[in-house]
């Protein structure tokens, strides 16, 4: 499948907005690893995410789209995708539990960087005829949710108290939203959570058909090289993915910092050695061992025989298939990726995956510890 031109993609999304069953078809376009997204720039990927999510406001937001919405609110660094995620929530009648906190996290990240965007067309030209911002859409969504959810009303009231933080227009939006929610007397409880908040509970993944292929060869930050299956075999492991040129501080930098904490906690529990920890770069040609080492150390990673960072030197395509990696590439490097962490059992099969959200180190350690059933075998890897 060739990369669809940007204009074709936009036309397709616009058509699906008015097509019966369009929501399901739009949902199918969201995964970042689709071939249609290869070759795009990160800005185009963020724009696409936001534009598609915004369409769900009219079509209704399917449950399966919620992880994408939460991901964009909590880790999105493109204004369009944060705005689109906020708009998407207006496709729900009742908010899921915890979504207000995700909206507020988006406010904290975008305040002071509230770039003007527009969903008036797929590729609007400046000046926009219907401009908006991510924070404007967050406020409007809080107003929408506030008809039923006291937490949303409280959040709006809290934002109104933060003086000199936002543009004057946004304070007017907040006031309008508060007035609208005050007029509503609905006291219904929020809908049960329709998505998993991975802070609390990682999602068990069905076992893949095969373990890591033997022909995936890796080189570690300390120069060790061999088969990845060799490293992952015979003991449970925690595997995450990143790349050193990621410029979104909410993604790879935080991922590795979290992994460092996982390593520390495993060490405190006396488990490091019975389990191992690995981070694999999405960008093996650029992330040479010295870069892997520096990136990890700068984020508190304590390296050792059971805690390594890798670049794949052969078989990366097989690895992508193996983990169904949520990554795609532009002309120079990664154009978009999801946050992903996998806990593997001693056979190297994925037992638990956490994607699109960061997971608390304790939860990860509990998950991997639960897989321990036999002592570690001898021999250094």
């Amino acid at each position, binding site marked *: 499948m060739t990369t669809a031109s940007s204009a074709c993609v936009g036309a397709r999304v616009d058509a699906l907005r008015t097509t019966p069953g369009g929501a399901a078809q739009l949902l199918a376009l969201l995964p970042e690893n689709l071939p249609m997204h290869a*070759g795009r*720039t*990160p*800005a185009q990927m963020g*724009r696409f995410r936001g534009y598609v999510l915004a369409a769900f406001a009219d079509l209704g937001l399917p449950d399966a789209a919620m992880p994408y919405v939460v991901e964009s609110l909590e880790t999105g660094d*493109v204004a*369009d995708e944060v705005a689109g995620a906020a708009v998407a929530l207006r496709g729900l009648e009742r908010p899921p539990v915890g979504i207000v906190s995700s909206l507020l996290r988006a406010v904290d990240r975008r*305040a*002071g*960087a*509230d*770039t*003007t965007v527009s969903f008036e067309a797929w*590729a609007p030209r*400046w*000046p926009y005829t219907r*401009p908006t*911002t991510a924070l404007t859409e967050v406020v409007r969504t809080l107003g929408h949710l506030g008809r039923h959810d006291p937490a949303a009303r409280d959040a709006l009231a809290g934002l109104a108290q933060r003086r*000199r*933080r*936002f*543009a*004057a227009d946004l304070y007017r939006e907040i006031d309008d939203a508060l007035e609208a929610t005050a007029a509503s007397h609905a006291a219904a409880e929020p809908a049960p959570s329709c998505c998993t908040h991975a802070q609390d509970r990682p999602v068990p993944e069905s076992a893949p058909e095969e373990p890591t292929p033997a022909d995936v060869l890796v080189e570690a930050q300390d120069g060790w090289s061999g088969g990845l299956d060799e490293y992952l075999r015979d003991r449970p492991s925690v595997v995450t993915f990143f790349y050193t*040129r990621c*410029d979104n501080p909410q993604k790879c930098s935080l991922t590795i910092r979290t992994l460092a904490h996982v390593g520390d906690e495993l060490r405190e529990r006396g488990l490091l050695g019975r389990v191992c920890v690995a981070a694999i770069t999405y*960008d093996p*040609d*650029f992330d*040479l061992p*010295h870069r892997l080492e520096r990136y990890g150390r700068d984020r508190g990673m304590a390296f050792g025989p059971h805690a390594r960072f890798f670049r794949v030197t052969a078989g990366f395509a097989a690895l992508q298939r193996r983990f169904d990696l949520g990554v795609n590439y*532009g*002309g*120079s*490097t*990664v*154009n978009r990726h999801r946050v992903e962490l996998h806990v593997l059992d001693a056979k190297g099969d994925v037992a638990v995956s956490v994607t699109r959200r960061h997971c608390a180190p304790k939860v990860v350690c509990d998950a991997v510890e639960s897989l321990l059933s036999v002592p570690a075998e001898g021999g250094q890897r």
Partner: protein
Amino acid sequence: MTSGDTARAGDDLRRAIASARDDHERYLTHLAEAGGIKDQPRAANAPVVVANTALADETRIEVLRRMSATLGGRGEHIETLMTVVGDGDDSPAVRAAALDLLAAAAFQVALFAPYRGRYEDLLRTLLTDPVEDLRRFAAGTLALAHDPQLQDVLERGLRYEETLPVERHHAIRMLAADDHRDNRRWLDELYRDGDEAARLDAVRYLGSYSDAGDDLERVLRDGNESTVVRQQAGASLRYLAPERFGAVAKEIALDATDDPEVRVACLTTLRYFGADDTDFVERVRALSEGEGEVAQAARGLVEHRAGA
């Protein structure tokens, strides 16, 4: 310094401060006369004078210069500055001076937070301003932020689909600021068609492309290329592929027919970042017995390795 010198320096400083204070006082009086506001502190006249298009450019620009802390330090004055910059009928010189002050104010993260969105909107609008300096400033600022609107404008302009806001090679440099974009075709153009400064930037940016090793090595080896561009190609190659750079640098360092400055750069880099290679060090030792900068650099490498 003697105690007398210290005392004199102190007296000079106090006189300078008093003189500056008196000068500022006189200026504030002059400002109040120009602005006409009498029932508020004289500094309140600053935004009035800046916004008054009937006054001479020199008067308004002087206010922007002298009262920068006042004008750039309060939200309502930032609004005034944006209005001046955005007025296409106003003096280009005054607009440029106001934009400079706005850009400085933008560094005050907390104060500027409520205005940053409008500031970016203003910069996007300036991309089609008739004043070239304003267009270039706006484009440069948006480029650092990887603004998608700017990137679209530049990409379309480079493809001749619309007019570029800046000169073509500047446009390429602005796009290249985002290493997550595929700018290879533009960087190749910059190197192929550009002057030395452009070629220097091209090889610098190529250091972000994993598949640029062949190109960078070719430039590093190119005896017809300028020294500074070859040196930058070496730096980029070392960033991208340290071992490959090391191999090429050793060849160049030992090549008596090559540019001495490039040889010195290679030897200096290998001195600090080269892997252990006793055979190479012995060959460099032979170089170190001569005269000139290459021999001196060779001696530095040998001595460094001996002490390591």
